[in-house]
């Protein structure tokens, strides 16, 4: 088992009252899963994803990631955990505009203290794998949305994380580009990468192996 959530809740204080974003969520993820989180706007999809990604803490409940109790360990260790094992893909790509494709890919490796020879090799591999060798010296603004998201996925994958978290990865793309991105995810999943995606679209949902439906913070 990769991760498990037990009775997890998340709330915010508003005017002296607790407003629940998530309530009593229970589920687990095995390695190799491809999970789609579905639900209307405001149902808590992104909150759940961010909690899993450890970018945000849950208010209550237990969260185990690789058998480590995320809800009790210290902030620093938690950061270490997600930096090592989780890759993020965002709806609006979040590439750094001032850096080229190649440099964007290098960045996570630089921060993880890879040797420069290793970085070179990994970047070359990844460019090759995603078929973007020809674009390596372009800046994000010179790419189409689909290409940018491809780079975003490549960047998320480059340090070989165990889990990819994707928050509406195709939200800003047209349907053809969206399909291509989903194909990429499927292929990655086939070679063993665990993926959790948040999506609005039934079509995208179909790519996943399991669906979690959220409504007003509950799993339905």
């Amino acid at each position, binding site marked *: 088992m990769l991760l498990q959530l037990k009775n997890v809740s998340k709330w915010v204080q508003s005017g002296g009252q607790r407003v629940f974003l998530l309530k009593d969520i229970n589920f687990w993820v095995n390695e190799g899963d491809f999970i789609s989180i579905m639900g209307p706007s405001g149902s808590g999809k*992104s909150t759940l994803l961010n909690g899993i990604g450890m970018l*945000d803490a849950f208010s209550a409940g237990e969260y185990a990631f690789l058998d480590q109790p995320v809800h009790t360990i210290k902030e620093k260790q938690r950061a270490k955990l997600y*930096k090592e094992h989780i890759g993020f893909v*965002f*709806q609006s790509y*979040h590439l*750094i*505009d001032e850096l080229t494709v190649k440099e964007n890919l290098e*960045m996570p490796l630089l921060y993880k203290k890879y040797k420069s020879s290793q970085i070179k090799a990994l970047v070359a591999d990844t460019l090759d794998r995603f078929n973007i060798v020809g674009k390596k010296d372009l800046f994000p603004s010179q790419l189409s949305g689909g290409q940018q998201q491809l780079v975003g996925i490549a*960047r998320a994958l480059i340090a070989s994380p165990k889990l990819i978290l994707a928050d509406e990865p195709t939200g800003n793309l047209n349907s053809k580009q969206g399909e291509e991105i989903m194909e990429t995810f499927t292929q990655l999943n086939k070679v063993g990468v665990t993926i959790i995606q948040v999506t609005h679209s039934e079509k995208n949902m179909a790519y996943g192996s399991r669906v979690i439906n959220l409504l007003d913070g509950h799993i339905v």
Partner: protein
Amino acid sequence: MFRNHIKIALRNITKDKMFTAIKIGGFAIGIAACLLITLFIRDELSYDTHYKNKDRIYRVVVEFNIEGERIKNVHFQLPFAEALVSDFPEIIKSGKYNSGALFGAGDKSLRLEGETQNRLEKGFVFMDSGLLEVLEIPLIQGNPKNALDEPNSLIITKEKADQYYPNGDAMGNVLILDNNTEMPYRITGVMDNTGLKTHFQYDFLMGISDQNASWMNSNYMTYVLVDEHTDIALLEKKMASVIEKYIVPALKDAGRDSDSFNTLRKSTFELQPVADIYLKTDNQIQDRLSHGDIRFVWLFAAIALFILGLAGINFINLSTAKSANRAKEVGLRKTVGAFRRNLISQFLAESIIFSILSFVLGLFFAWLLLPYFNAIADKAVLFPLNSWWFLPLILFSAFLIGIIAGIYPAFYLSAFKPINVLKGRLSIGSKSGKIRSGLVVFQFSISIILIIGTLIIYRQMDYILTKDLGYTKEQVMLIEGANALGNRTQSFKKQIQYMSSVQQVSVSDYLPIEGKKRNGNSFKKAGEGYQIGGVGLASQIWRVDYDYNRTLGIKIKEGRDFFIERASDSINSIIVNEMMVKKLGLSEPIGKKISNGFDWTIIGVVEDFHFNSLKIGIEPLALVIGNSPETISVKLNSSDINSSIEAIKKIWDTSVPNQAFQYTFLDQDFAMMHKDVKRMGIIFNSFALFAILVACLGLFALSAFMVEQRKKEISIRLVLGASFKNIYRLLTINFLKLVLVSICIAVPIGWYIMQRWLEDFAYRIELSWQIFVIAGILALGTAIFTISYQSISVAFIKPLKNLRTE
């Protein structure tokens, strides 16, 4: 519409309190500094502007050309002033005064007729009635046409008149000066010079008693009032005829050779406008007046502009940096129908409101700081709040500066295209980033130049105040008004000499402090003609006593000191300084004879010591035994100065019961002599600090914006595994690059400016590379410190907040 502008502006002010505080506060500090400097400059420029005939009053200056060396002088012969009026019809009136201590000007003890108690007063000067008229001395009693015609006439200030004659008319009363009952002075006038800004600051004006109408002695500062429409350049040329007509015949009578005539014929005259005397008098001219310095006025004006510029740049930088936050507003306003000019006027209105608020706050700061500033600058500047022009001027300046500072942000912000803004596609242009970087470099360059200036001025001040002067100024007490001792001088000297706390005592008014007694004379080798263009070597000859050199710690280099046992020492023995030996070209000086009209035998050579301000080099000097009993110098032992003073005071009080014991210390007088240097240094440093503070505020705010703008990027990096250290370096390095560029720009400029400033001093520090390294390190340190606050705040960024998709 306008009300709407104001409403939005006020809401923006309260929305982001820190930035508002920096924007308005920084601007206000700049305005306060600028205002104080402006008041200071205005005060400096206000000297001698009150005369009715101010464009027609001149001081006469002569420039000698002695074998190529140009020497300016303002001292003229007694008959010179009258000769000018009789020879040149353009000159309507002339006047003269003599402030030389040698002739009895300066300090005097004073008592009312019929009383016994003497009081020491300062600021006595000999002058004629002509000068009363030329300088428009404001007499409230007495007739300026003839008030000083009699040798024993005296004009005093209203303040002194009220002090000495609290319930009566001062006019016609008699005063005894320096115990001289044979020549009592009668008050023939009272002047009210309170609050008058003039270079001519004397409290007691005495009629001229000097009867020596010779064309050989120059002791009188001479002023003229010229006719309207006078061609000054022409008059200056014509004045040279005085030399041929009066001076050359006098020299011939005295038996001087033709060399000296020829040298004199090369002299040129110059008429210095009265308004220039205070600020624009050459250092070389020794007129015993206190001067300002026009270069400091310029320097301060430049600093004021810089500070205002720095504050303005902050304003612009902060406004454009804030653009991301305003862009959405601009986009929305445009989509609902605003034209660009509406937006420009909105942003300008906002800028003007900011500017007015800053001015109000700045005025308040300046008002708070004015007393401190007056104390530092030794001024009594008042806030011209009551002047009709002041408030309109301030308001106008606030508008103008508001518009200037607001115009760039207004155009920049109003140019956003709504579609880009609303789609969130606003890329904060790299172009505006470049301009902002340029402005930061500009700010830091100026700050670094000011840091360099501050360091160098401080070092130079320290150098002057601690320089080895060739004599000992510490623990030397100067007893003033000692001529009151009369024939008890020697017994008084013996009594304090025997005190265990006293090392040495010397009676002489000639002291190595500017403003003390001086006696210029020209020397030659005995038995030869006058060298150096026939006019001889301009030197000082000082009358001292046998203990002078020991009391002041002046070192004998060759030969010997004066001995009281040698009868000839008090007749024709002379001790000279090294400079005199060098200038006269004496090898083996001991035993040689030199002459100033009287032949002296050199018995000793003293090491050169500084007896002028360090702005001037050491001049030739000769010491002879003589009587000059106004000041007694007492070298004390270091232990318990206070009880020594008490003991000496007791002896004084029994010797001179009718005059209070007055003393200073030589080192204090020395510090006073250089107080202008010190004062300017302190003022400069204070304002430099102001400027640096303003620049730092700007950098602080800018780094905050940088962080704000790059929040998204930083968040991405954090999510991708960047550590705090990585981010800190990322944010800091860009600014540090700018600071390094600034250092490269500032160092050569600072070097050049300070080199020029130092040239003014005959004795000065060398500009060493260490100063520039220290300045660079200080600038870098300040920058890192300023930026770090913001860079560190990044540690508390929540990446999630910035990565949410709108």
